[in-house]
């Protein structure tokens, strides 16, 4: 059925181009039926893309190797779940997934907002259509998933390192994030084009931005966890360009989420917000360009392909047009409200934005530096881990502190006495914590100690806020403490959901600080029966076993673990040798301590024929807080995303006051 797939994508391209041209004409000329027709085209393009996606999925599931893509990414023996993940495992399929999510989001965003923001939607449609035209063009002309060949007896199979559950969740989540950022971008550009610079574009896209940002964040954490347990080099983030490709738009989106609050409450930062959303979207495109084009040396990257120049051209065009538009609308974007004091909540949010942006740009510079230096000096110069770590500390630590200050400092102008009163308790907690940690030996890493102290401060403010809020609700007449707590959160979802997310970031900071500033490593070559020590752990290498499975030989060393004089059980570490693919993978042994969140991480680096093994062992304090942070982040995001009926009613009431029909 590849012809159906190809035809469906061609129709998608046609519909996108129509939506672009007709939509722009309808918006410019104010033609209602033409505008509706363009909207229908956008929705229809989702249906046709879905048809194409179904064709590819069906071909994968029935192992139809006449599809070149299917033959390249799967094999008969591949389990069904991974066969499905092969959809996004290769260039063409992943582009199709991008297009599917894009058209889906476009259809949804336009349909859901059609009723109350019609004059804005009419401009959003052509912008969305422009983006989907680009991606449709790529899958039709440059990288089609429906190329055919004489079917070989079996496919090439999937790299063993991709055959794990992470492959099912990590890429789709990242795509939901990247593509999701298109929605606020399209609405922002639509608002600029139409001159409708009121709050509606922000209100319409707030949940979309939150959703995309949350998906991007969780997708990255999943990727880190994958790297930690499966790739097993002992770390979870290598500042690899492709990892940074997802981090940069996430940082820009984080800045945007915060500055949007300032625009909502004080009407300030309008130009800034539009620039931020353009940056976030451009970085998302740039990120996928980095991943696909092979332009930088990366552990993920895929070789030089034809797709790079197209992406670069599209990014350049997007940035140029967007900035030109902002510049032309500058007078209308200026807000009358000014920043009154450098010590205020507005200022704190501004510092937050500046720091996030500084970190984002520092990472961007690190990523493009090899390309820039090659262009200027003829030689690619690579910036290493120490560069990124330095800026993460320089900008990240102040950001951490700000997370505790921002929510509590007064609006407009904060007096020093009010600061002293508000922050007395959390500062006390932080100083005591810092002193105790110093005594316990945390002075071995100053950045680590600072991170711990700042985290204590922020956690103190969060606990204080929850406690005082619950007490206030109880005083207002809540039946019991739990119901006071519950109603506090449900009536103030954005604020307290935000606090939960902040708590997640603190957990993340603690986990990262602990596992990178206070970790230890030991290496030893052990014969059977020999032992090694690290920290207060003792490991004894007991035995070596081999086991054959369907597609691999599994070799595992068993070690006894002891801490002090307590037996802690056994640990297994070794390698898998995949027969068909002729590859070896590392299978690390991890023992997580429930109480302290510490990990004992064992790598069997080299297994000699006589059974002696070269082991590399890490102790990583607090590392499991990172994964816990992911869970807390998810909870916080859900709370803030949860629909708020009261807010909805207020918006509908406001719309009808102006005479905009709320539904039709």
């Amino acid at each position: 059925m590849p012809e159906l797939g190809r035809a469906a994508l061609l129709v998608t391209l046609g519909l996108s181009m129509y939506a672009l041209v007709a939509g722009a004409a309808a918006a410019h000329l104010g033609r209602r039926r033409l505008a509706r027709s363009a909207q229908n085209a956008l929705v229809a393009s989702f249906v046709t893309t879905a048809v194409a996606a179904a064709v590819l999925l069906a071909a994968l599931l029935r192992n139809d190797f006449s599809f070149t893509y299917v033959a390249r990414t799967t094999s008969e023996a591949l389990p069904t779940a991974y066969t499905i993940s092969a959809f996004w495992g290769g260039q063409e399929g992943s582009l199709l997934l991008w297009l599917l999510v894009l058209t889906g989001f476009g259809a949804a965003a336009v349909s859901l907002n059609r009723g109350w923001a019609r004059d804005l939607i009419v401009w959003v449609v052509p912008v969305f259509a422009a983006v989907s035209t680009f991606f449709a063009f790529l899958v039709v002309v440059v990288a089609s998933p429906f190329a055919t060949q004489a079917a070989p007896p079996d496919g090439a199979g999937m790299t063993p390192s991709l055959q794990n559950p992470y492959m099912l969740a990590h890429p789709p989540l990242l795509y939901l994030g990247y593509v999701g950022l298109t929605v606020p971008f399209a609405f922002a550009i639509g608002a600029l084009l139409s001159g409708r610079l009121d709050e509606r574009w922000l209100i319409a896209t707030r949940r979309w931005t939150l959703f995309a940002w949350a998906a991007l964040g969780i997708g990255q954490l999943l990727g880190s966890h994958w790297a930690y347990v499966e790739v097993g080099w002992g770390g979870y983030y290598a500042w690899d360009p492709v990892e940074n490709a997802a981090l940069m738009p996430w940082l820009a989106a984080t800045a945007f989420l915060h500055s949007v609050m300032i625009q909502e409450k004080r009407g300030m930062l309008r130009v800034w917000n539009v620039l931020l959303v353009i940056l976030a979207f451009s970085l998302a495109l740039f990120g996928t360009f980095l991943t696909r084009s092979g332009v930088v040396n990366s552990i993920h990257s895929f070789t030089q392909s034809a797709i790079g120049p197209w992406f670069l051209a599209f990014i350049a065009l997007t940035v140029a047009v967007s900035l030109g538009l902002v510049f032309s609308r500058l007078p209308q974007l200026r807000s009358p409200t000014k920043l009154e004091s450098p010590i205020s909540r507005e200022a704190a949010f501004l510092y937050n934005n500046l720091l996030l942006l500084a970190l984002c740009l520092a990472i961007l510079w690190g990523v493009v530096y090899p390309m820039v230096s090659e262009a200027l000096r003829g030689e690619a110069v690579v910036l290493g881990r120490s560069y990124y770590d330095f800026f993460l500390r320089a900008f990240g630590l102040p950001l951490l502190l700000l997370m505790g200050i921002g929510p509590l400092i007064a609006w407009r102008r904060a007096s020093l006495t009010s600061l002293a009163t508000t922050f007395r308790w959390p500062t006390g907690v932080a100083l005591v914590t810092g002193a105790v940690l110093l005594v316990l030996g945390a002075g071995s890493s100053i950045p680590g100690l600072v991170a711990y102290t700042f985290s204590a401060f922020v956690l103190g403010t969060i606990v204080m806020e929850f406690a005082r809020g619950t007490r206030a609700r109880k005083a207002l007449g809540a039946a019991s403490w739990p119901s006071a707590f519950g109603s506090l959160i449900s009536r103030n979802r954005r604020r307290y959901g935000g606090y939960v997310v902040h708590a997640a970031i603190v957990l993340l900071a603690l986990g990262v600080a602990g596992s990178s500033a206070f970790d230890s490593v030991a290496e030893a070559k052990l014969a059977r029966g020999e032992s090694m020590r690290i920290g207060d752990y003792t490991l004894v290498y007991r035995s070596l076993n081999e086991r054959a499975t369907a597609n691999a030989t599994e070799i595992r060393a068993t070690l006894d673990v002891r801490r002090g004089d307590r037996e802690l059980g056994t640990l297994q570490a070794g390698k898998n040798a995949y027969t068909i693919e002729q590859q070896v993978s590392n299978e690390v042994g991890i023992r997580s301590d429930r109480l302290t969140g510490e990990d004992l991480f064992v790598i069997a680096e080299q297994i000699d024929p006589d059974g002696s093994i070269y082991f590399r062992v890490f102790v990583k304090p607090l590392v499991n807080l990172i994964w816990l942070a992911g869970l807390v982040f998810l909870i916080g995001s859900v709370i803030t995303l949860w629909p708020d009926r009261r807010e909805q009613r207020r918006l509908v009431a406001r719309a009808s006051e102006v005479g905009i029909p709320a539904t039709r």
Partner: protein
Amino acid sequence: MTLALVLAATLAVACVVAVALPFIREPEPASDELDELDDEERVRLGLLEERDRALAALKELEFEHRTGTVSDEDYRAQLGPLRRDVASALQALARDSGEGRPADERN
């Protein structure tokens, strides 16, 4: 192969119909004008947003006073200006309704 072509053709036709639908449904409409906000309405929307923003700021001050983030002294100091903001926003709205046609007389 033919099945694929038939399906593809059906898909294409369906899409053309979807796109042409607004024109098929209303071949001779009373008005083809896009329902847009005119300048008056846009000004009014801006004023409404100002009012809602001032009200929200007041509400937030109350909340933060109740939870203890804002001290009694600061609360008293900020209450006045915020109440004045709300009042001037409401006044501006009233002036706007007085000048233009009232909202419920339209459409």
